[in-house]
Every structure is written in structure tokens, then in C-alpha cells.
């Protein structure tokens, strides 16, 4: 089990005049190896929830266990938790600061493992740091020779985002959390970033948690989805099953992929075929069903 949440609640400004209940009694288990999606409206509490996962926000009530580490105030394992559980914020390129791409990517590595010194014999040598940075850059599809010595501020938006993601995965986190990784990119950039995330699942981080507004992205990638509304988990199931609850989703101002809409409309007409994230496969099944029915 990767992440285990029990009865987690969180209130912003619990004593102040602007008291706001962000999470109510969340109970959720995310298993190792899952590609888990979280979907919900702005202000539904999804960002608050994921910031708990690497102890940027401490649980106020309820329990939380991530990668075998209990998240409690004052725990000495929080730093190693953050190394094991990488977090890519929304618009991660805004956190770049290094003079060179290499320096920026090495930041997390040096913070978590440290350079090799007499006091820190388990640290990394300059050569090892360079190797790790190179590896991370290649994982996000940036050539080390071409980009390592350039300033991150000279790069294009999509490249900056890759550098920022490389800066997270350089520590090889078991769990990778991404908050709307494709927002603000053009369609091609979106596809590339999502392909990159799928590759990362195969190589460095086999548990992925992704927040998204885009049901197509969720449908295409996730094995399970949680729908959050007003701080509560309303539904938690596979995308295929989720999309059969079209009315409930519309009630939460969420849309479903067009293929799922067609599936549901056909089901109402008596042609019940299973949803498939690949529209070509779906079309083929429908065509076969109709052709078969005509015989």
C-alpha cells in the first residue's frame, strides 16, 4: 500500500473569521503501482489533499501513512518522505531559480542526499550528481549536452516544465504527484507531457497521482479516479465505471469524454457496448454489435 488515508479532515483558519472546511472525513487507499486520478472543481479541496501526501500540510485530524511513513507533526522522517514522494506543483516552471539547468535539477538531489564530505560519507560526488542529473534530463527528453549549461529562463514553456519535472524525479521518488501537469500547454505539448508521465511510471515512479480538469486525460491514463466535491470524495472508481454516472458528474459541473457520451446515448437506445478509452476500438465494437444485430 502506497498511501493510506483514514478520516482525514482539514480546516483553514479554524479559529479565525475566515474559517473554511477544506477536507471532510476523507478515507482513501492508493495502492502501489496505480495511476490514480483526482478530479474536482476549483476549490474542491484536491490541492489541499495532495499537499498532505508529502507533509507540506500536516493532518489536523485523522491518520495518514505514505510509503510506510506516518505523517505526524515533528516526525524526523518527513524529509525522507518528501524524497520518496515527489510533488510537481501546478506551473512548476515558476519555481526554477538556477543559473544553469544542471544546477536547478541538482537542487533536490543535494538537499535530500547531500554532497560527499567527511561528515556525510553517504553523499554524492560531483561526478555522481552529474550522472543523476543527466539521467533525469534524458528521462524528460532533454539532451544533457544541449541543455545542461543553459539558463532555465531562456527555454520555452514546455522545456521549462520538463526541467522542473526533472528536478523532482532526480531523487527517483516512489510516488509522483502531479497537480494539473498539462495546464497552459498547447495540445502537442499536453500530449508530450502525458507521454512523459506514462514513461516515468515505467521507469522511476511506479505510483502516479495526477490532478486534472480534463476528463480525456483521466480516461486515457488513470486506472482509478476519485471525484472530489466540497472537500468530500463523492466517487472513487475506474474511469469506465465513472463515465456511466453521467448525470451525477454533470451535477458536479464535470464533463465526460465524448466517446463516453456516445456510449451512454447508445446504451439508452438498447445498444450496450463497454466503454473503451481508444475511440477506434470502441467504434469497431459498436460497428460489430450493430452488424451482428442486423443479421
Amino acid at each position, binding site marked *: 500500500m502506497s498511501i493510506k488515508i483514514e478520516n482525514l479532515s482539514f480546516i483553514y483558519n479554524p479559529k479565525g473569521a475566515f474559517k473554511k472546511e477544506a477536507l471532510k472525513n476523507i478515507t482513501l487507499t492508493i495502492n502501489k503501482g496505480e495511476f490514480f486520478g483526482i478530479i474536482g472543481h476549483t476549490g474542491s479541496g484536491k490541492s489541499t489533499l495532495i499537499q498532505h501526501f508529502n507533509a507540506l500540510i500536516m493532518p489536523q485530524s485523522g491518520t495518514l501513512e505514505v510509503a510506510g511513513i506516518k505523517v505526524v507533526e515533528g516526525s524526523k522522517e518527513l524529509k525522507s518522505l518528501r524524497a520518496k514522494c515527489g*510533488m510537481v506543483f501546478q506551473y512548476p516552471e515558476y519555481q526554477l531559480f538556477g543559473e544553469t539547468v544542471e544546477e536547478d535539477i541538482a537542487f533536490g538531489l543535494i538537499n535530500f542526499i547531500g554532497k560527499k564530505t567527511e561528515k556525510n560519507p553517504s553523499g554524492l560526488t560531483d561526478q555522481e550528481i552529474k550522472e543523476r542529473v543527466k539521467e533525469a534530463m534524458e528521462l524528460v527528453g532533454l539532451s544533457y549536452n544541449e541543455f545542461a549549461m543553459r539558463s532555465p529562463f531562456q527555454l520555452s514553456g514546455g522545456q521549462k516544465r520538463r526541467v522542473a519535472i526533472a528536478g523532482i524525479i532526480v531523487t527517483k521518488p516512489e510516488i509522483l504527484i502531479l497537480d494539473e501537469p498539462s495546464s497552459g500547454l498547447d495540445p502537442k505539448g499536453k500530449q508530450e507531457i502525458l507521454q512523459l508521465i506514462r514513461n516515468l511510471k515505467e521507469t522511476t515512479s511506479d505510483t502516479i497521482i495526477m490532478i486534472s480538469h480534463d476528463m480525456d486525460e483521466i480516461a486515457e491514463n488513470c486506472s482509478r479516479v476519485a471525484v472530489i466535491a466540497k472537500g468530500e470524495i463523492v466517487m472513487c472508481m475506474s474511469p469506465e465505471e465513472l463515465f456511466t454516472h453521467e448525470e451525477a458528474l454533470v451535477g458536479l459541473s464535470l464533463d465526460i469524454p465524448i466517446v463516453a457520451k456516445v456510449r451512454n446515448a447508445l446504451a439508452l437506445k438498447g445498444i450496450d457496448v463497454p466503454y473503451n478509452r481508444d475511440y477506434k476500438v470502441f467504434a469497431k465494437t459498436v460497428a460489430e454489435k450493430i452488424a451482428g444485430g442486423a443479421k
Partner: protein
Amino acid sequence: MREFTFGQYYPANSVVHKMDARAKLIITIAFIVAIFVVEGFFSFIYVAGFLVFAILLAKLPIRAVVKTIKPILILVLFTAVLNLFFYQKGEIIWEFGFIKIRDEAVRFCLYMAIRLILLVMGSSLMTLTTQPVELTDAIESLLTPLKWVRFPVHELALIMSIALRYIPILMDEADRIIRAQKARGADFESGNIFARAKAMIPILIPLLVSSFRRANELADAMDARCYSGGANRTKFKQFHIGLNDVMGVMSVVSLIMLIITTNAVLF
């Protein structure tokens, strides 16, 4: 970081809140003059009385005003201690090694402390009861005569209001960046002062970069709306001098006169 509320606007329905911002600005400046005109402790009672009266009139909780001196308390203590040891006039009343404390120094450092506290409370009273936009409008209006010498008054006021408007946005941004760098294992709490200063770099650079980005975006947006400065612009909120404003200015003028008279009688 969100608790940073140094003199932030405190909404209430009071005479002081409704006063003309220009009048409030003039009263505040005159009040500061009054603080420095005082000679002798007795006159501080007038000044403090005036301040308390204004706070009550503004329907502000005394605590909200007193809280504003918290950030400068260290400064007050620091200047008081320095003055106590290094002020060179008067009789020595206590001596220990090279430390000599004189009676004039005690008097002087008490004066300084009281003045600083009254000064901050007085100016906070203005920012607590006046919206930032009103305040910059008031500054613009009061500086209008400088337009005759081609001083860019409107532009100055605009710069001030933009700066004020961006404080909360930048604070949010800083908060986000701090979280993001923490997630990358950044440590802001341990190490000596140099290590801590160095740990700020990953926050300050992204913050600086994003301020420039925001400034550029704002400039583009203003260009797109053909913004061209102060000429022929009208205001949504017009200033009106009312009876309360005249009475306010009169009362602060009488405060200064009272202090000058007291000074003349006592010294």
C-alpha cells in the same frame, strides 16, 4: 505569513472611515508634527488623549491599533538602549565600569520611545480606516500643485496603488514557491545566518522573475486599453470636504497650539 496585517484596512462604519482621505492625510501629518513639537511629558497626555479619542471615534478595537506597534517594538527598544548609553548630556546618575547613565539620557530615550509608538499608532490609524486606493487618490490630489512644475503626480500615485495592490499577490506567490522548494527538500529553518540567507535564493529568484512577468503582463494590458496617464481622466469616487473634515483638521491644529502654549508656559 498570512498574519502579516500591519495597518491593513479594518472595515467599520464610523465617522473616521467616512472622512475625506485628504483630510485624514493632513491630520496624520499634523499629528506627527505635534508629536515632535512636544517638550515635557505633560503634553504627551494631550497627544495620547487625541489618539484615543480618534480610535474610539473610528470604532476600532483598541487591540487592533496596539497590535500595529508589535513589528517596531524591537526598533523602539534598540534605539532606547542606544540612546540610554550614548547620550552625552546631563548629570551622571549611575556608573558601572565604562557604562555611564545620565539623567538627560533617561529622559531622552523615554521621549524617543513614546514618540515612535505614538507615531506608528497614529499613522496606522489612518491606514486602518482608509482603503489603499483612497489613500493614493488623496496623495495625488494633494500633490496636484506640483503638476505646475511638470512633476508626474498621476504616474506617481498610479505606481503607489499598483505596488500596494501587488503585495497580497506576491505574498501568495511566495507562499507557493516556498511550498514547492520545500517539496524539493529545501530547509529554511536550520543552519547559521549565512546558510539561512543562502536558503532564500531559491525563493527570491523565482519571486523576482514572476514580478517582472506580472509587471510586463500588466503593462501590456494597460497598453491594450490605450491607457495614457492622467490627462482628462475622471474619478469613480469624488472627494467631498464635509463638516467632519473641517472639524478634524481644526482639532489637530488646536492640539498643536495647545502643545506650543504648554511649552511656552512650562519652559
